[in-house]
């Protein structure tokens, strides 16, 4: 009984503390700082991507003199380690302990889903600067959740459309059997079949298995007009090299989403030459906006920017648009969202708008590997909007 009493007293104390915490930010809002919680990978496989996103975000804030909508920006950082198992703890640190006004993150889709769930519950603003899981702006969509990057469906669909338009009649798809792979292949199939193409086979292997030889032999035996592939990082390097080594590149052209050749060209060497991919960004776009951004980024960080840096930069731009509309009062979520829905974001990738489910409506570029660059050879799909399936805002 003693224990029960103690417990209940503890509980009341905890409840009181929780209420106090919940009230605190309301007092804090006025003309104080805006607290931005950056939840990005600082260690692990995606560490480099996290750094690029953070640099991009900070570059925009610095360009605005360290203030957005007249409010000083303060950063709180958590390393999410790209570990979904720690995601809930990590995001709660930012929401409950640090009381951030805005969450920005992350690279890994599994971690981003946990962030979206937490943001949906707490109502904290969330801007996703990379993770492409369709669900973030699909079934998980919410008035306070936004994305500055892409949905997995987008580059896949654009490539399907493009391949059909280029006269490819039959194709085989190959990817890892996990969410991102499935979603890109689904997008590809939708676009390709709408254009009259036929997917002969959907090959896949468990993540992160990179023993492709059996499946390459299967592709050769199936004899499609072309192959559509999604792999990333080390797997993408090995796939492109194995595809060329198996002699398939000469007979069956290789297409894929941008991740197949992004950040991997150094390692892929000549085997990647000529491979065509789709993505919402490309090297040497040559627009004044992009050139200015690239110059500023390279000057500030002594690093060449990439698509992740652009996504980070645009996450900050989106935050600035929203904050300006609500004059820094992040509790006005409807007005914040309405402002973004009406906005045209002047991104280095080109101008984009925000769809009803809060995903970028953007041009998807068709790129070809030339030397060590993913050179844009045109637009694969103009102002492509994710269908936002399952989203009810």
């Amino acid at each position: 009984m003693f224990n029960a009493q103690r417990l209940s007293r503890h509980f009341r104390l905890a409840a009181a503390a929780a209420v106090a915490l919940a009230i605190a930010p309301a007092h804090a809002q006025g003309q104080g700082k805006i607290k931005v919680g950056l939840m990005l990978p600082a260690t692990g496989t995606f560490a480099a991507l996290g750094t690029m996103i953070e640099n991009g975000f900070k570059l925009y804030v610095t360009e605005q003199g360290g203030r957005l909508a007249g409010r000083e920006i303060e950063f709180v950082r958590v390393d999410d380690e790209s570990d979904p198992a720690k995601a809930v703890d990590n995001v709660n640190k930012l929401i409950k302990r640090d009381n951030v006004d805005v969450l920005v993150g992350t690279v890994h889709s599994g971690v981003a889903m946990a962030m979206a769930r937490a943001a949906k519950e707490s109502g904290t603003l969330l801007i996703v600067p990379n993770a492409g899981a369709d669900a973030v702006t699909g079934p998980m969509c919410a008035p306070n959740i936004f994305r500055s990057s892409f949905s997995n469906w987008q580059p896949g669909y654009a490539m399907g459309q493009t391949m059909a338009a280029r006269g490819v009649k039959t194709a085989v798809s190959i990817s890892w059997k996990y969410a991102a792979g499935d979603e890109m292949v689904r997008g590809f199939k939708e676009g390709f079949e709408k254009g009259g193409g036929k997917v002969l086979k959907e090959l896949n292997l468990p993540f992160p298995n990179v023993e492709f030889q059996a499946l390459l032999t299967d592709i050769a035996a199936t004899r499609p007009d072309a192959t559509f592939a999604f792999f990333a990082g080390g797997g993408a390097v090995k796939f492109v090299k194995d595809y060329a080594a198996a002699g398939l590149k000469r007979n069956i052209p290789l297409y894929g989403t941008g991740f197949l050749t992004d950040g991997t060209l150094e390692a892929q060497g000549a085997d990647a030459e000529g491979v065509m991919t789709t993505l919402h960004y490309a090297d040497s776009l040559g627009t004044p906006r992009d050139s200015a951004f690239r110059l500023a980024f390279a000057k500030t960080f002594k690093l060449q920017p990439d698509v992740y840096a652009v996504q980070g930069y645009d996450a900050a731009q989106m935050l600035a648009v929203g904050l300006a509309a609500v004059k820094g009062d992040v509790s006005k979520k409807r007005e914040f969202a309405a402002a973004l829905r009406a906005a045209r974001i002047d991104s280095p990738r080109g101008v984009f708008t925000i769809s009803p489910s809060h995903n970028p409506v953007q041009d998807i570029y068709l790129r070809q590997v030339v030397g060590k660059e993913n050179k844009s050879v045109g637009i694969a799909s103009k102002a492509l909007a994710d269908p936002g399936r399952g989203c009810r805002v």
Partner: protein
Amino acid sequence: MDLTTFLIQCLNAVQYGLLLFLVASGLTLIFGIMGVINLAHGSFYMIGAYMAFALTPIIGGAFGGGFFAVLLVGTVLAVLLGYVLEWAFYSYLYEREHLQQVLMTYGLILVLEEVRSLLVGDDVHGVKVPPILDGSLPLGDMMTYPVYRLFISAVCIALAIGMWLVFTKTRLGMMIRAGATNREMVQSLGIDIKFLYRVVFAAGVAIAALAGMVAAPVSSVYPGMGSSVLIICFVVVVIGGIGSIKGALVAALLIGVVDTFGKLVLPSASGVMVYLLMAVILLWKPDGLFKAG
């Protein structure tokens, strides 16, 4: 599947199996003979691959040597590394429980990954196939088969024969086998068992590193590559019977076949096929196919 395709797939299966054997044989040596659960085995594979990447320009620049010089230097460095690690860490583990071995070797994985990150960074790198082996053979009208993959298979077969010879035909092999069966008895016969273990461990590390170096041109070099081979290595060792080189070879080939055809016949279950195979074999023979000793 027509006959040609089937034969090519068989070739793929054997080739993958031999590569698995190359990676796993060092583990079965260390695990079976010394009784140490060495989780850091994958890291030695990773070190080998990174050596192939990092040493190529250095050695090429200094001595004008090609890929084979890199293999030689890399193997010597790996032997030294193994020798030092055994002296500094592993020699304290023989009498300890498995849990402590797991803890220490897991710690070593983290340390080695971090050192790799500091020295080489986190980017993905490629290693060029040596020019002599850069050709390919036509297979049917669609495909070609890279000569380098045949070279890998040849290295694996040479290693398997070499290990078999050392174990069964030499005095050293006899001492090692005796040491695995009864450490104290061998010691009381006047054989320096500590030195013997150090040699075995260094050889295990060198084989893993050699596997990494040989595989680097086809697998590319990336962070976390060590952990990607570790689990499958343990599967090979457990199926084959702990400590048995012959078992490791048979198990590796078996896994090669099951994995290759599993991907084609049952693509949705290809991730679990290898583990199903392991479960079935362990039900049938709880000690693996060929238990040593």
